C-alpha cells in the first residue's frame, strides 16, 4: 500500500547510520500513519508512512535500514541504498533527511557528505544534541551548513524539539526541490583511499563547526572558536570523543566473563518465561470470548447450515488462532525493549565466539531471537549478516526454533497431557521444548557446517563489526506502538489464510452429507446432535481424503482425522488447532473453547475400536512432529525470496519434515515398547 500521490505530494527519505535516531524521528513525523512497518529488532526493510496531517505538508516518508556508507556490504544495506536511489513504487526522493548523531559527528557526517556529493537534495537533522552538550560542546549549525553545503537543523525526535524549524523550511521550499541527475555510485570506484580522503575532508569541517561551551551561562561562541589554537583543539577533540562512562561501567558487568553469561541467561530465560506467564491470563480471556461468540451465533442463527458455518467455520476457526496473539505481542514487546535499551548488540557480541564455531555469526543472534516470534521476520533479519554462507546457514536453521505459531499447538497438547492441577508441569515442559529447539538448531547448524559446501555453497570473508550503542532507558511508548503495529501487520498477513482455510476445512468436514439420516428413536436431542456430527464427519470429503493418508498415520499411532489436521497445518502451523477444533469439537458445551476441545479429544477413539486416539505417547509424537516439521507456506516462500533459489527451501522442507516423521515414529513406538500407552 502506497499513499496516493497528490499534486504537491513530496517524497521524503530518511537515511542515517545505525543508532543515529532515524527511526525515532520517523515515528515522530509519521505518528500512527504507518503503511508498512519493521518488526522489532529487525529494521531490515524500508517502511513508508504519511507525514502527520497536523504538519500541513502532503508528504510520504520513508524510513530505511541504517547504513554506514553508500557502498553496501550487507543485504539490508543494499536495500537501503537501492531504495534511496529509487524506491520501487515512489521513485526518486524529492528530499533526503540525513540523521547525524552530533556526539559522533565525524563518523556520521561521512555518510551525509557522500549523499550530498551524489546530488541529492539533503537536509541534515542533528540528533543527540543534549549528549554533546553534556560533554561540553555544541555544533555551530550555520557554519556546518555553509561548509557542507546543505541545510542543518538540530532536532530531538523524542520530544519533537526543533522539528518545527525543519518542517517550516520544507513547507517554504516544497515546490523548489528539483530532482537533479544523481551521481551513480559504483563500488568498484570506491577504494580505501577514497574513504581516507573523505574522512580528511570531514575532519576539517568538524574542526570548524564544533565549539566548546566555555561556561553554561555566558557563551560567546564565535570568540571561543577563534581562541582555539591547534593544541587546545586537539585536547578539545579528545574530550568530545569521550564515550559514555556509565555505558562502559555497565558493560564491565554485562560483558564480564562470568557475570556476562549469568545475565545473558537470566535475560533470555526472563524473555521466554514471560511469554508464557504474562500471556496466559489474556489467552484464557480471549478463549472465553470466542466460545461465547460461537455459542451466541448458534443460538441466534439456530442449528442450521448458516449458524454452523458462522459458529464453527468462522468463529471457532479464527478464535483458536486468535488465542495466541497475546504471546506474539509480548515477544515483540520484549524484543523491542531489548533493542531500544541497547542490549541486543551486546547479546550478539557475547554469542559471536560460540556461534562462529558452528558456522554462524554473532549477528545470527537477533534473527534467532526473532525466530521465536516468527521465522518470517527472522529470515529477513538475517540480512544484516555480511557473510553469505553464514547468512544462508542462519536462514536454514531458523525453522527449527520454536516460533509462536507452534505455541497454540503446544498449549493445546500440553493442556491435554497435564490437565488441571498439573498445569505447572506444562510450563516446565514448554520451557524444555524451547531449550530443545535451540539445541536442535545448533546441532543441525554444526552438522551442516561440517558437511561443508554440499548443502550451502557460498564462501567469503567472515567478520563481526558492530556498534555498541550507549545504554539508554527504552521508550515504552514508542516500543509499544511498534509492537501494536507489528502485531497488526502479522495478523493482516496470517489472518486471511487462517480464515480461508477455516472455511475450507469446515466445508470439507461438513459436506457432502451435511444433514445425515440417523435413527432418532429413544435418544435425547443432545445425542442427536452428537450422532449427526460424527456421522457427517465420517462421510465427508475430508474422511475420503483421510483414508488415503491413513497408512502414513497408523505408524504414529494416529488416525486420519489428526492426519487431516496435520496436512492442513502445512499451510501454517496454527491451523492445526483450528482444524482440530473443527474436526473434534462437539458444538454445544459449557466452558471455554479450549476446555470443550480437550473434552472432545479425551473421548475420541481410533476408528470403531475402543483404543483411545490421544494417549500420552501419541501426543508426545505430535509434539515432536511439530518441533521439526517445516509446516508453513509463508516460511517456504520467504526462504525462497531471501536465499534467491528453491534449493534451500526445498532442502529445509524435505530434511526437517522427514526428520519430524522419523523422530515422531521412533518416539511413539519407543514409548509404547517401554509400556507408556
Amino acid at each position, binding site marked *: 500500500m502506497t499513499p496516493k500521490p497528490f499534486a504537491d505530494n513530496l517524497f521524503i527519505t530518511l537515511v542515517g547510520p545505525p543508532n543515529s535516531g532515524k527511526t525515532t524521528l520517523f515515528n515522530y513525523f509519521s505518528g500512527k500513519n504507518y503503511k508498512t512497518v519493521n518488526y522489532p529488532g529487525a529494521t531490515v526493510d524500508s517502511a513508508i508512512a504519511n507525514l502527520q496531517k497536523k504538519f500541513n505538508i502532503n508528504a510520504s516518508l520513508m524510513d530505511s535500514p541504517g547504513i*554506514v*556508507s553508500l*557502498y553496501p*556490504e550487507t543485504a539490508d544495506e543494499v536495500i537501503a541504498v537501492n531504495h534511496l536511489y529509487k524506491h520501487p513504487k515512489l521513485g526518486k526522493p524529492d528530499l533526503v533527511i540525513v540523521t547525524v548523531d552530533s*556526539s*559522533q*559527528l*565525524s*563518523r556520521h557526517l*561521512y555518510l551525509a557528505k557522500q549523499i550530498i556529493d551524489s546530488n541529492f537534495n539533503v537536509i541534515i537533522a542533528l540528533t543527540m544534541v543534549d549528549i554533546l552538550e553534556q560533554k561540553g560542546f555544541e555544533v555551530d549549525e550555520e557554519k556546518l551548513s555553509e561548509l557542507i553545503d546543505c541545510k542543518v537543523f538540530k532536532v530531538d525526535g523524542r520530544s519533537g524539539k526543533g522539528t518545527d524549524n525543519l518542517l517550516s523550511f520544507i513547507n517554504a521550499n516544497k515546490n523548489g526541490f528539483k530532482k537533479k541527475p544523481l551521481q551513480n555510485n559504483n563500488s568498484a570506484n570506491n*577504494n*580505501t583511499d577514497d*574513504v*581516507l580522503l573523505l*574522512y580528511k575532508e570531514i575532519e576539517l569541517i568538524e574542526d570548524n563547526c564544533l565549539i566548546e561551551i566555555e561556561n553554561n551561562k555566558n557563551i560567546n561562541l564565535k570568540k571561543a572558536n577563534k581562541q582555539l589554537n591547534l593544541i587546545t583543539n586537539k585536547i578539545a577533540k*579528545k574530550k*568530545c*570523543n*569521550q*564515550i559514555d562512562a556509565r*555505558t*562502559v561501567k555497565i*558493560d*564491565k558487568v554485562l*560483558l*564480564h*566473563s562470568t557475570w*556476562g*553469561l549469568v545475565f*545473558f541467561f537470566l535475560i533470555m530465560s526472563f524473555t521466554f518465561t514471560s511469554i508464557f506467564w504474562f500471556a496466559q491470563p489474556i489467552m484464557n480471556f480471549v478463549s472465553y470470548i470466542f466460545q461465547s461468540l460461537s455459542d451466541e451465533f448458534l443460538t441466534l442463527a439456530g442449528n442450521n447450515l448458516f449458524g454452523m458455518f458462522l459458529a464453527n467455520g468462522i468463529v471457532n476457526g479464527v478464535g483458536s488462532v486468535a488465542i495466541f496473539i497475546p504471546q506474539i505481542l509480548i515477544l515483540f514487546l520484549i524484543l523491542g525493549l531489548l533493542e531500544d535499551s541497547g542490549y541486543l*548488540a551486546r547479546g*550478539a*557480541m*557475547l554469542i*559471536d*565466539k*560460540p556461534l*562462529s564455531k558452528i558456522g554462524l555469526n*554473532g549477528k545470527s543472534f537477533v534473527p534467532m531471537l526473532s525466530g521465536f516470534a516468527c521465522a518470517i521476520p527472522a529470515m529477513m533479519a538475517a540480512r544484516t549478516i*555480511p557473510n553469505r554462507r553464514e547468512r544462508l546457514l542462519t536462514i536454514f536453521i531458523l525453522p527449527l526454533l520454536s516460533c509462536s505459531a507452534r505455541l497454540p499447538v503446544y498449549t493445546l497438547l500440553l493442556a491435554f497431557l497435564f490437565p488441571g492441577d498439573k498445569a505447572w508441569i506444562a510450563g516446565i515442559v514448554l520451557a524444555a521444548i524451547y531449550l530443545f529447539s535451540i539445541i536442535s538448531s545448533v546441532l543441525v547448524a554444526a552438522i551442516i557446517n561440517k558437511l561443508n559446501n554440499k548443502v550451502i555453497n557460498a564462501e*567469503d*570473508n*567472515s*567478520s*563481526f*563489526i*558492530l*556498534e*555498541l*550503542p550507549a545504554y539508554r532507558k527504552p521508550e515504552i511508548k514508542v516500543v509499544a506502538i511498534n509492537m501494536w503495529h507489528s502485531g497488526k501487520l502479522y495478523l493482516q498477513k496470517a489472518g486471511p489464510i487462517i480464515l480461508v482455510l477455516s472455511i475450507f476445512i469446515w466445508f470439507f468436514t461438513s459436506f457432502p452429507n451435511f444433514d445425515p439420516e440417523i435413527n432418532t428413536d429413544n435418544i435425547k436431542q443432545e445425542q442427536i446432535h452428537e450422532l449427526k456430527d460424527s456421522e457427517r464427519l465420517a462421510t465427508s470429503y475430508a474422511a475420503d481424503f483421510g483414508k488415503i493418508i491413513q497408512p502414513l498415520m497408523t505408524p504414529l499411532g494416529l488416525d486420519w482425522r489428526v492426519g487431516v489436521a496435520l496436512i492442513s497445518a502445512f499451510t501454517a502451523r496454527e491451523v492445526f488447532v483450528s482444524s482440530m477444533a473443527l474436526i473434534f469439537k462437539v458444538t454445544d458445551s459449557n466452558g471455554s473453547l479450549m476446555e470443550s476441545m480437550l473434552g472432545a479429544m479425551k473421548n475420541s477413539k481410533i476408528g470403531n475400536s475402543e483404543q483411545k486416539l490421544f494417549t500420552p505417547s501419541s501426543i508426545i509424537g505430535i509434539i515432536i512432529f511439530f518441533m521439526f516439521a517445516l509446516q508453513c507456506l509463508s516460511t517456504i516462500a520467504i526462504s525462497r525470496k531471501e536465499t534467491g533459489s528453491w534449493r534451500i527451501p526445498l532442502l529445509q522442507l524435505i530434511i526437517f519434515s522427514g526428520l519430524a516423521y522419523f523422530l515422531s515414529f521412533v518416539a511413539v513406538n519407543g514409548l509404547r515398547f517401554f509400556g507408556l500407552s
Partner: protein
Amino acid sequence: MKTAADLKCGDKVTINGVNIEHPSAKRILEVGFTPGQEIELVNKSVFDDPIAISVRGTVIALRKSDADCIIIS
C-alpha cells in the same frame, strides 16, 4: 607489528595505519578507524573475543581477526 588485536583492557593508542590487504579493511575504515585516530580497548567479551574499541565518540565491537588489520605500531 602490533595490531589492535594485541591491546589489553584500558590501553589507549593511536592508529598508525590500516592493512588494506585485509578483507575487512574497507569497512573498518568506514566505521572510523583511520590512521591518526586515538582508540581505546574498553571491554572484552565473555570469551575474550570479540573486543570493544572506542573510536570517534562511540564503541565498536569487532573480532580480533578484524582488529588485526588496525596497525598501532
